[in-house]
C-alpha cells in the first residue's frame, strides 16, 4: 500500500491532523477540526499511475467493502473505521460521470479547483512511509473558496473555521509571505472568492496580510 501512496495526495479534513508536523514549534491545534471517517485521495494525473494494483481487492482482506454510490456508480471503500474515496481534478467542460482508474480497479469523482491542491504539495512522514498533502496555505485558501459552494450550512461553517484556523497558524509561524504569494498566484476570480469568504467572517487581520504589498511579516 505504501507504494501506491506515491500516486495519491491526501485531501479533506484529515490533512489538518497531519499538518501538526509542519506546524511543530508553532501554536497549532488539529483537534479544532472535527473529522469524519471519510478520507479523500486526490489523483492528480490518472494517466501517470505506474503500478497496477487492485485497491478494492487489496483492502478486501482488511474487511473493506466496495460500494457503488448513486446511479452513476461512484466507488467508495467502506470500513467501520475509514471510508475511502478517490477524486481527480475536473478538466475542460467537466463530467458528472465517474472517471475510471483501471490500474487501481476504481473510479473517481471529478471536482473543480483540485489542481490548486495538487499544484503545491508537502510530504509528511508517517511511521515508515511518506504521505503527500497539499501545502497548508493551498489547503486553507481552497477551503475558503469551497465553503461558499456548500449546500449544508454546518459543513460550510466547518470548512470556514478550518481555513481560518490554518491561515492564523501559518501567520503565527511566520509564513504570511507564502500565503500571500500563493494567493497572488491564483486567478482573480478565485482571489475575489477568497476575499469574499474572509469578509463574511470578518477576518480583517488575515485580509490585511493578503493585501499587504512587499512587506514580509
Amino acid at each position: 500500500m505504501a507504494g501506491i501512496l506515491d500516486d495519491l495526495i491526501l485531501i479533506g479534513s484529515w490533512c489538518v491532523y497531519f499538518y501538526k508536523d509542519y506546524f511543530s514549534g508553532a501554536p497549532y491545534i488539529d483537534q479544532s477540526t472535527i473529522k469524519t471517517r471519510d478520507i479523500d485521495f486526490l489523483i492528480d494525473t490518472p494517466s501517470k499511475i505506474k503500478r497496477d494494483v487492485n485497491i478494492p481487492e487489496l483492502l478486501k482482506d482488511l474487511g473493506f467493502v466496495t460500494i457503488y454510490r448513486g446511479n452513476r456508480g461512484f466507488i467508495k471503500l467502506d470500513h467501520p473505521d475509514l471510508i475511502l474515496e478517490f477524486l481527480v481534478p475536473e478538466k475542460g467542460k467537466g463530467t458528472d460521470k465517474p472517471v475510471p482508474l483501471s490500474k487501481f480497479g476504481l473510479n473517481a469523482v471529478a471536482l473543480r479547483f483540485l489542481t490548486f491542491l495538487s499544484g503545491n504539495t508537502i510530504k509528511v512522514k508517517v511511521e515508515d512511509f511518506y504521505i503527500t498533502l497539499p501545502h497548508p496555505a493551498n489547503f486553507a485558501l481552497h477551503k475558503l473558496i469551497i465553503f461558499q459552494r456548500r449546500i449544508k450550512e454546518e459543513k460550510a461553517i466547518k470548512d470556514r473555521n478550518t481555513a481560518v484556523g490554518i491561515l492564523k497558524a501559518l501567520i503565527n509561524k511566520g509564513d504570511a509571505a507564502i500565503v500571500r504569494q500563493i494567493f497572488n498566484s491564483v486567478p482573480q476570480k478565485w482571489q475575489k472568492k477568497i476575499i469574499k469568504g474572509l469578509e463574511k467572517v470578518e477576518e480583517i487581520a488575515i485580509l490585511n496580510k493578503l493585501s499587504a504589498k512587499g512587506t514580509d511579516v
Partner: protein
Amino acid sequence: MRGVIKGVLAEELENSLRMQKEYEGALKKLPEGCLAIKKIRGHEYYYLVKRLKDKVKYIYKGKISEEEKKQYGEAKELRVKYRKLLSQVKKQIRFLRSSLRGKEAI
C-alpha cells in the same frame, strides 16, 4: 441548523447505516455453510455444514476441487471478518442515534 458537531454525527450515522446494509449484503453473497472434512478409514470425505432453520445439516459434497476448497476457506474468513465489522457498525449506530437525540444545536 443543527450545529457543526451534530452535522458531523448525522453524516456519520448515514455512513454507518449504509455500511450496515453493505455488510449484510456482503454476508448474503458469501457461499452458505462451511466445509467439514470427515476422515473415515484413512479417506477424506467433504461435507457442507449448513444451518437450516434450527437444525445443522451435513450435506455430502463428494470430491471437491482445490479451487472450491479455497473458496470455502476464504468465505469462512470473510464471514468472520464481516460479522465482527457488522457488530462494530451496529454499536456505532446505537451510539450515534443516542448522541443525536437531544434537540440542542451543537
